[in-house]
């Protein structure tokens, strides 16, 4: 897409993420793109661990750590207070996990979107409660192993990008750490807009997904190229733009990097391939 990443060093080394962690990579591109005039809201998650225990901080911006379900409401409170003080320049960003977004934080998120609150909400989606030992969330894919779905999750992943787009908010985008320039460009785009902006970032979890330490970016790219996680933008709930879509790579190639799908039989793989193909065709009609 011809975007070069202009980074301001806000996120620093020495943080507590696992070596090779996709979330650390995502946080770097998010906060370094947003810049110094930003306040971050972080609920309990690996992001909270990476942010750093008191009195340390991996980010050179104020970080407010809130409760698991209240990120969107907390961010709205900060932004309303800034407005009341006549501050129209400081950005507010939520960086939350999928459990805190798809599940327990969804009520506050949907309400903030309906009110078109003026902040950026980034969900780092690693498809489960990885910080508590890899339990299932409503983002966990169909048939994936987690410690709370040892036989595989019986229902598909919730389609949060489309749910957020259906709120008609100014900006919704999907992104992933295997495409860092695309991710940074989307954060920069969100930064220029007003109102509620939502970015869903797929962040493969080395431990939770059973990946090799260096497999994060490759797995991320395979998620896109197999059509499982297409990268696109939606403005005002209606104007869809495709950035990166399926290259026809079979889902098996994506799954082969991970241990959470290794129990699948060929018939199950075929079933998932059909679902992915249907979803990809359905999405393509919107561009």
């Amino acid at each position, binding site marked *: 897409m011809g975007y070069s990443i202009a980074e301001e060093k806000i996120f620093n080394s020495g943080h507590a993420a696992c070596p090779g962690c996709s979330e650390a990579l995502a946080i770097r591109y998010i906060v370094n793109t947003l810049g*110094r*005039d*930003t*306040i971050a*809201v972080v609920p309990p998650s690996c992001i*909270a*661990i990476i*942010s*750093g*225990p*008191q*009195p*340390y*901080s991996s980010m*050179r*911006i*104020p*970080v*407010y*750590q*809130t*409760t698991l*379900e*209240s990120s*969107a*409401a*907390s*961010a*709205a*409170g*900060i932004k*309303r*207070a*800034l*407005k*009341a*003080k006549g501050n129209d320049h*400081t950005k507010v960003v939520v960086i939350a996990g999928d459990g805190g977004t798809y599940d327990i934080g969804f*009520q*506050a998120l*949907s*309400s903030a979107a*309906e*009110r078109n609150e003026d902040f950026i909400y980034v969900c780092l989606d690693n498809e489960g409660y990885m910080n508590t030992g890899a339990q299932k969330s409503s983002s966990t894919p169909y048939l994936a192993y987690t410690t709370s779905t040892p036989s595989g999750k019986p229902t598909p992943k919730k389609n949060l990008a489309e749910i957020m787009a259906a709120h008609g908010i100014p900006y919704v985008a999907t992104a992933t750490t295997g495409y860092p320039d695309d991710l940074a460009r989307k954060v920069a785009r969100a930064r220029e807009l007003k109102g509620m902006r939502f970015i869903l970032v797929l962040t493969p979890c080395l431990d939770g997904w059973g990946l090799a330490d260096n497999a994060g970016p490759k797995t991320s790219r395979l998620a896109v190229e197999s059509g499982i996680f297409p990268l696109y933008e939606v403005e005002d709930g209606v104007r869809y733009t495709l950035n990166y879509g399926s290259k026809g790579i079979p889902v098996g190639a994506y799954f082969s990097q991970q241990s959470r799908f290794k129990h699948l039989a060929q018939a199950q793989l075929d079933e998932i391939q059909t679902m992915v193909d249907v979803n990809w065709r359905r999405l393509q009609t919107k561009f």
Partner: protein
Amino acid sequence: MRKEHTRLLLNGNHAVAYGVRLAQAKVIPVYPITPQTPIVEKISEFQARGEMEVELMTAESEHSAMSACITASLTGVRVFTATASQGLMLMHEMLHYASGARTPIVMANVNRTIGSPWGFWPDQTDSLAQRDTGWIQYYCEHGQESLDTVLQAYRVAEQALLPAMVVHEAFYVSHALEAVEVPDQTIADRYLPPFDPPHRLDPEIGESWGNTVNQDMFHRHRHDLGQAMERVPGLAREADAEYKKLTGRGYGIIEQYRCDGAKLVLATMGSMAGTAREAADQLRSAGVAVGLLKVKLFRPFPTEDVRKALQGVPKVMVLDRNFAPGTGGFLHQELKAALYGMENAPSVHGYLAGVGGTNVSPANILELAQAALTEGPAANSVWKG
């Protein structure tokens, strides 16, 4: 100076709204619930008429309303919200979070029964069940007191950096009309300085809040919180005295009424104090030496003041319009604890009266007083109607 006010016919909830307007709260996240809603409706009216510059955030739940109160306060503005009953229950997690974050939020709670089963009736259990959340709690007898207490609560909360609840009961206070003196804005401004905290969420300062701490840091944090709470009775006494100088109205953190030489003191909170005052007058007229102790500041519990007030009193009769299964009336428990170890402490009779919002008339209280004067005290609270 005492003429610097407007006299209006207001219900208790609207009186609270006038108090909030005078305090010039800047962010008000809210969620509707009966019987709180008239407070927020009136504030919305003030905003629509251009009489109040405020960010009203219509949250999807009380939990989110309180979450937004905390961050708005941490960003450095004066914040208000109001709730009742189930709403307060839903906020419970964030009540602890608010005091932990040392945010001087002021919230009005209109006491209402907690389900199940459903009810809409005056009962103080909702707020009293939050007594351990680190919030200052004031109980008010009438709308005038509620308005005045909102301003006092902001002053004390911002000095102690603790959140404060201003509480009055459903309908008896929330919807009862009475003449209320609304102080002029100049008086409120003289009383309540602008809120400008040195620690706040601000990129220019770079301070964060909420990160994980170690055991020692948590220990010190709780100790600090406790010390702040210990300062509150003194701050609240001073806030009340200053308020009285400016408006002519003061309440004390407790009120002693006709307690001189009393052989029985009625102890209660909120609207029942008015009824008990009437009962005390009737008993005094009949030659029975009965007084009233109204506990206005319930958290922190004004132990010293209560001990002093009950020095030499042989009997106390506590009227609790609230109930904790297994322990009884909240004021009864707290009063017994406050008097424990005191030399010649009065015997304490705990009566559950008006639980669930049943009416307690002066005549009922006269009967209860006669019972207390003749019976020995029971260890636990006794159901009396």
